[in-house]
Structures are given as C-alpha cells and as structure tokens.
C-alpha cells in the first residue's frame, strides 16, 4: 500500500456504474461522481437528475455545442438525453426529498464507519459553509453512494470511527467507493466488498485504525 491511489478515478467511476441498475433515477454530485455517467450504457436508460433542473441529462458537452443555459449542478455544460426535460427548483427537490430518486452519488470530506457523512463544511467559518443540495439528497435518495479518496492529501484517513467535521446526515451512506476498496456501511463495522490488488484487509484495517469485515460472499477483486 505504498501507491498513492491503487485505483484511478476512472476505475472507481466504472465500478460505481456497475451498481446502478437500468432505469434508475440517479443524481451525480459535483466532481468525481460526474465521471460515473461516462460508464452508463445508453440501452440501460439511466435517468440522470441534476438538482438545478434536468431530469434526463446527457453527457458533458464542450466546444461550439455548449450552451450556458443547459448546465448541470457543477456548471458544466451538458446535453439532454432523449426524453430528458426541465423542472423548476421546487419540483427538482420534491423529486429528491419525496423518495423519487433511486441513488445519489456524492463526494465527501469524511465518512464514518456507521455511514455518517460530512461534506458541506470544513468547520472553519472562513471556508464558506456551502450545503447546496447535499442535505436534501442524503435524506431523500433511497441509496446514498459516496466516492472519495480514502486518504487525504495529509495522508489522514477519511473513513473514520466518528466524523470530526460537521455532519451532512447521520447514518446515510450505504456504499463507499474509494481508491483502495469498496465498502458497505450498514452496521458499525464496515464490510469490505472489493479490495484493490496489492491491498490486504489487515493492512487496510491497520492503516485506517478501524475494524473491517469481509463480505459474507467473499471479497471481490477491485480492478475494473
């Protein structure tokens, strides 16, 4: 475990996409989660929701076809999928909170072993606390997936026993996809679903300072 990232952002995105079922209504958060949409098969007709008002967003568009009235929540210019349409902010968040969103895929600063999520504030007032739609997404979506690097730039673990940063939601994260492993967070001890080549459960557990357990069906090979 000397490599900085055992799994690339693109590999992580491809792995997350495998867990999104055909016909699902999915919200992709700003940053790394946006990549997941690149690995959806068109025939699966996965409906990408953007909280600023698209139901059925297509891929990111650059160049002469870009239109700054057709953007996702991260202000990237996108296209509209066939069947895609626009809703206002009230309807967009009714879709989120009302239980009509199957999966939200978010980034995070910290996630706890029991699924608490911290992703809106670093705690420092000067860093402009900015919840955006994250708090609505975590209470509303049927499943919350998080994608993040397992260790910060300072090498501090970001999967922790207890979050030290202000929470976005408590016990909300179902799956955590990282650059070393994929975790299921359904109890108090994270379950490892997939491990990157060259990584062992014990070594990961030691580096995180956390108890981990293997998936009952065995740990999968996280290589994509």
């Amino acid at each position: 475990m000397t490599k900085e990232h055992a799994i690339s952002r693109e590999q992580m995105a491809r792995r997350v996409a495998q867990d999104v079922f055909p016909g699902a209504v999915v919200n992709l958060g700003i940053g790394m989660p946006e990549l997941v949409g690149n690995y959806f098969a068109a025939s699966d007709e996965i409906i990408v929701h953007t909280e600023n008002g698209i139901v059925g967003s297509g891929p990111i568009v650059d160049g002469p076809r870009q239109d700054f009235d057709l953007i996702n929540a991260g202000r990237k210019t996108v296209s509209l999928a066939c069947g895609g349409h626009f809703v206002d902010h009230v309807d967009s968040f009714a879709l989120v909170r009302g239980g009509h969103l199957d999966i939200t895929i978010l980034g995070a600063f910290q996630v706890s072993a029991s699924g608490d999520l911290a992703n809106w504030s670093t705690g420092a007032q000067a860093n402009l606390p900015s919840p955006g739609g994250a708090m609505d997404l975590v209470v509303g979506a049927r499943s919350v997936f998080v994608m993040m690097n397992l260790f910060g730039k300072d090498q501090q673990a970001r999967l922790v026993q207890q979050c030290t940063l202000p929470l976005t939601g408590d016990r909300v994260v179902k799956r955590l996809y990282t650059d070393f492993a994929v975790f299921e967070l359904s109890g108090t001890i994270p379950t490892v679903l997939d491990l990157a080549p060259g990584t062992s459960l014990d070594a990961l557990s030691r580096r995180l300072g956390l108890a981990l357990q293997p998936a009952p069906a065995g740990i999968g090979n996280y290589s994509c």
Partner: protein
Amino acid sequence: MINKICDSAIDAVSDISDGATVLVGGFSGAGVPETLIGALLEHGATDLTLVHNNAGNALLGVARLLAAGRVRKMICSFPRSWESDVFERLYKQGKVELECVPQGTLAERLRAGGSGLGGIFTPTGFGTDLAHGKETRMIGDRGYVFEPALTGDFSLIKARRADRWGNLQYRMTARNFGPAMCMAAKTTIVEVDDVVPLGMLDPESIVTSGVFVQSVVNLKKETK
C-alpha cells in the same frame, strides 16, 4: 387592458427602496437577470437583503451589488462557488451577513411564502448544525425541522419569453428558481428575451402564470 410591459429596466426597478428584500433568480450563471441587476445598481438602493442560490461569481450577477457595498445580508445555499471572491472577501471582513440554507429548503421556503403558508417541516438538515436552535418535531419515526416561509419585497427574474399579461416561458436550466421566486415576492420584475402578442404562447407551455408577475422588461427593446 392589462399591460405589464415596462419601458425600461431602470423604470422597472425604481420602486426598490433601501433595506428591501430582493429575491434574485438564477443558478451558477444560468437565469441570472443581469440587466435588472445592472439597473438596480444604477438605481442605487442599498442595505439590501438578497436571496439567491449562490453569492455571485467573478464580477457577475449579485457580485456586482456586493462589490458596490449595497448588500447587508445574503440568504443562499452555496456561497463557495466559482470565483466567489467578492462575497468571500466581504464575509471575512464582517461586512456582509450570511444565512446558509440547504438548496431544497431554500426552494421550498420560497414556495411556501408564495403559497400563503407559514413555513414547512422538512427532514433536510435534521440533526445537523443547520438545525441548531430551530423547532423540530418527530412525525412518525422521522425527525423534521421547521423552516419559516420566505418572501421578498421584490424578485428579479430572467425568462425567455413573455406576453403583456406577464405569462412566462423559460429557457432550459435557466428556469431554476424563477417559478418559486415569482410567487414569493410582492412585486416581481422579469427581463425576457422576447415579448410576443397575447394569445401566442401555447397555454399548455406557460410555466409561470402572469398573475405572479408585475413588470416585464423586453431585452430586445432595452438600450444598453
């Protein structure tokens, strides 16, 4: 004969007084009423409370009013945005107040305000720092936070097309907060790319009823 078409943007904003609460449509650039913001800047009203998803980007949108020292308080969901330097500087200097509201809560508080409701109970933010000091209630087995309705003295909105009754159509994701903010202000002022004769908008495709609109500024006739 009803005619809400205003001669100029500066006429349209002339009743906005010092200390007013102004709802400003737009999300990360899309749907930001730049002409009306320019007119408000020229008009000179100050000590404003602005309600807007972001807190301005670069020297665009509400950042123009912030930079000119016209804003006492921002109510928004995502102040930390691309090139949000103007707000950041004023906030760190203690020159502007911030009320941070989750995005879906912001939309729903406006909807409540425009619909004659006193407020809403939302699961969003329950148990987080943003619920601190607020009334909470258990409904069934779930916790909810009371959020008061939000209204404005004025709203400034960008739409694609209007008729003289003020009926509106928007353009793609520029719709965002428009419908909710039109309802939530005592006086709604809308800038549009085009005005068409009454009866020419498809009745099935009118997104905001003209009942919620008081003034329309036709950008085609607006001399810069």
